[in-house]
């Protein structure tokens, strides 16, 4: 199969129509002169069809899961069921205002409550909040909860440090730091937490240890119970980053592993779309220690009625307007209903099976830096490519020419020239074999062709260095740049 992405010579939206002479918007009585806009917003007046064609053409220059295999490690790019899209657009879901009287939104409340209850069973943690808009937002809220908890314990002054493994996602240290903690990385041993080093590092200064399990090297942290013991021995909180939950559904859960608080990404494990970068939906799950600190409002059931409860004196308050990304919550609920207990277990078994199968096949081409048994994703090192004057980046770009998406590259940072591959449970064996064949063709290609890739997409290799060195960040910048170019 030869892959060709659409290559439209499509102008920018503002170049579709001739520039208008500035005209003032209609006057609104009572608005004083100094607050009136003197010229209408500078934006083109277009027909609906022109707009639709423009964005349709742009869409054809974009890769989605529906376009091709999308093996981005740590992103869990599984199929987004169409039925969820249908349901999220129902009038009873979309045309509901968050501040309607509770009596008129019993359905939304019940859906949130049911989703919370089932996520509680999946995580093994009793208290749930659906308020965070994304995973990192959940991490941040959890770190604020940790802060509030230690304030109540009278230990906030000494609990200043959050520990993380060196395999942690970048959002973990960033979230801890925004919540006012300093961060310290614990070095890994063969891709897993070095428990001896963790034991040396924990102290009365430790507020929390943030851990992803399986971790970003694709390895299950087998010493998780020892890790939990070490963290709890100094009274610190063990935090679960749920980005990789897709590997362990029904096998274990954060509660059983000893985590005190967790976030999940509904847009990874529970099939809601990633939206080209969002919206996501985070979930906070907490045990008894941190449960009282979850954001308000909480959804409660009283008899057959549901209501919001704001009366939680220890709560950190709000982290976002309204209650969370309801449209995504609904999609995730439909996803969980569709799978049921056995289906959810099957997800992880199949995702891990796909991953180990692809790892064993691709391990023939590039070294695997850690042990062979992996979970839902695996890491390869592109170091040997360097002998041919080729880098991991070139291989990633060459893969795009095969009509498949590239893996995550240069993460985790502890592996030189790393590639991280995740092939979720919705990829069939045919697709896996197709991906492996594409990988074989790409890596066997000449250095020249690898450097020249990609050639079959809307654009060739994009100059990212130039983008950062001479930032052109809006139409306004483009206008200024072209005015400057025209000045002799």
């Amino acid at each position, binding site marked *: 199969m030869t892959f060709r992405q659409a290559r439209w010579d499509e102008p920018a*939206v503002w170049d579709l129509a001739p520039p208008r002479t500035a005209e003032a*918007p*209609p006057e609104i*009585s009572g608005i004083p002169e100094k*607050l*009136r806009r003197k010229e209408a*917003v500078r*934006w*083109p007046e277009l027909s609906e069809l022109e*707009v*639709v064609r423009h*964005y349709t053409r742009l869409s054809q220059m*974009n*890769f989605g899961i*529906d*376009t091709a295999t999308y093996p981005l490690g740590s992103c869990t790019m599984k199929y987004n069921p169409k*039925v969820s899209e249908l349901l999220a657009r*129902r009038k009873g879901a*979309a*045309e*509901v*205002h968050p*501040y309607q009287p509770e009596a*008129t*939104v019993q359905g*939304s409340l019940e859906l949130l409550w049911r989703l919370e209850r089932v996520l509680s069973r999946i995580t093994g943690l009793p208290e749930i909040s659906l308020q965070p808009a994304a995973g990192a*937002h959940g991490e941040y809220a959890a770190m604020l909860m940790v802060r509030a908890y230690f304030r109540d314990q009278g230990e906030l002054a000494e609990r200043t440090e959050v520990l993380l493994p060196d395999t942690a996602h970048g*959002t973990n240290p*960033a979230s*801890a*730091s925004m919540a*006012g903690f300093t961060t310290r990385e614990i070095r890994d041993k063969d891709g897993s937490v070095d428990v001896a080093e963790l034991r040396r590092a924990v102290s009365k200064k430790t507020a929390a240890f943030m851990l992803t399990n399986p971790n970003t090297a694709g390895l*299950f942290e087998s010493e998780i119970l020892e890790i939990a013991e070490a963290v709890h021995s100094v009274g610190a909180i063990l935090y679960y980053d749920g980005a990789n939950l897709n590997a362990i559904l029904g096998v274990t859960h954060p509660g059983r*592993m000893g985590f005190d608080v967790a976030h999940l990404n509904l847009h990874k494990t529970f099939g809601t*779309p*990633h939206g*080209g*970068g*969002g*919206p996501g939906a985070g979930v906070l799950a907490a045990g008894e220690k941190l449960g009282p600190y979850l954001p308000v409002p909480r959804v409660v059931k009283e008899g057959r009625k549901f209501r919001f409860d704001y009366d939680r004196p220890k709560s*950190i308050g*709000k982290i*976002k307007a*309204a209650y969370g990304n*309801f*449209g*995504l919550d609904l999609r995730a609920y439909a996803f969980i*209903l569709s*799978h049921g207990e*056995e289906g959810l277990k*099957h997800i992880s078994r*199949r995702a891990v099976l796909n991953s180990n199968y692809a790892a064993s096949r691709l391990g023939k081409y590039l070294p695997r830096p850690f042990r062979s048994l992996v979970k839902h994703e695996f890491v390869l090192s592109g170091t040997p490519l360097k002998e041919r004057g080729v880098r991991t980046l070139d291989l990633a770009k060459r893969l795009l020419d095969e009509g498949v998406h590239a893996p995550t590259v240069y993460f985790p940072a502890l592996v030189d020239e790393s590639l991280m591959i995740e092939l979720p449970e919705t990829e*069939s*064996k045919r697709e896996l074999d197709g991906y492996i064949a594409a990988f074989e063709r790409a890596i066997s290609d000449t250095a020249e062709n690898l450097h020249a890739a990609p050639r079959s997409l*809307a*654009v*060739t290799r994009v100059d*990212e260095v130039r983008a950062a060195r001479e930032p*052109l960040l809006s139409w306004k910048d*483009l206008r200024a740049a072209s005015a400057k170019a025209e000045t002799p």
Partner: protein
Amino acid sequence: MSRWIPDESGEEASLLEALGIRSTDELFTDVPKRARIGRMGVGPARDEPEVVAEVDRLLERNRPLSKFSSFLGGRIACRYSPAAVDAIVSRSEFYSAYTPYQAEASQGMLRTLFEFQSLWVEMTGLDVANASLYDGATAAGEALLFCRRLHEGVRFLVPASLPWEERSVLENYASGPGLRVEGIPYDDRTGRLDLEFVRAAVAKKDVFGVLADVPNGFGLVDEGVPELKGILGDVPLVVAADPLSLSVLEAPGNYGADVVVGEGQGFGIAPSFGGPLLGLFACRKEHVRAAPGRIVGATLDTEGRRAFALTLVTREQHIRRSKATSNICTNESLMALAFVVYASVVGPRGLARLQASLAEKARTLASGLGSIEGLQAPRFDAPYLGEFTVELRRGTADEFLDRLRRRKVLGGHSLKDLRPGAASDAERVLVGIPESTSEKDIQKYLRAAQAAIGAVGRTA
């Protein structure tokens, strides 16, 4: 078993065979026995018609806005979204994509985000916009942290009339670095900010930023806001603006705003019980390296073609980790797409006409309510656009709204609900004007209000 997990006969067996194992159990030997669980307690799988029926059963317990004459608003707007917007948002090349890390494969979303950034720049009069944040409230929170990177100090001033939700979000953002959020008092006749309070606070040299919302939590356009920057000097000014209002109001960048944030939901995004929303953020170019969130930049490909990529990434968490300007990773890209498609379909003149029409309906309703004995509307002597405040001279706002609801009118928000604990708020209702509001809806509100306040009077 899920039909989305491919299960062609023998498929999994051949995968197992290739690995030389008999069962997927062998793939989980790294999970210690003591960490294993039994059943989770999730129900059985349902097929697609059953899932549709179950979700519909729940949604039927909602009464959507179309069942009422609704006057709900606040930061979440009820506007019509042309079908073309959802048609584009529904294209799975967009919605099933990840963050555009691989620029060459993602030019469609990158160009869309660049156009979105450009639109917010044009609306605000600033130089740089990011590719979105979670919502208006968290955008204000990020603006708070951004201001602290630009200026020393410990206090961040916000209007005392700011809705409680936003205040609470801001206080959370402030709490990590040990900063404080303080309310600026307002004049209870005009709703205007007390500029002398701001002047005195700034003179103490410990204010690192000031936020003003336009329109504010009472729906008012505060004539004092353009004067703020003159008082603040080099202390950054954040304006939280409703994007629709910017179709007719001066761009805040032109009166000194250093940051403009906003809630973008009203542009092509359904209320959906409050999410997903869209956080807007713009700043000046000289401050871009302190800005939060992803930013798309224009560049070239190797053949000199115009191309786009995520840029200035050294600000971000995946590069800078604990030193990043924000922890944000997943943002609201698809909602940014809806925003720019909506604005392009409606057009700048259409947006201004819509804002003018909402303002006119608001004035009609306010003057009608004002002529009802027992109600004061509009409550404040100040300009407003599509929302205004009513004060009850007797009874409670909750009781009043309950009585309206029995007549199928959702009459607005009790300001006590929007700001629990703000005792000074008397019995006030923030009334919004959804786009669908007809003359009939307005008359229905007036009749219902007359009856409700009359009944309140009798029981009082």
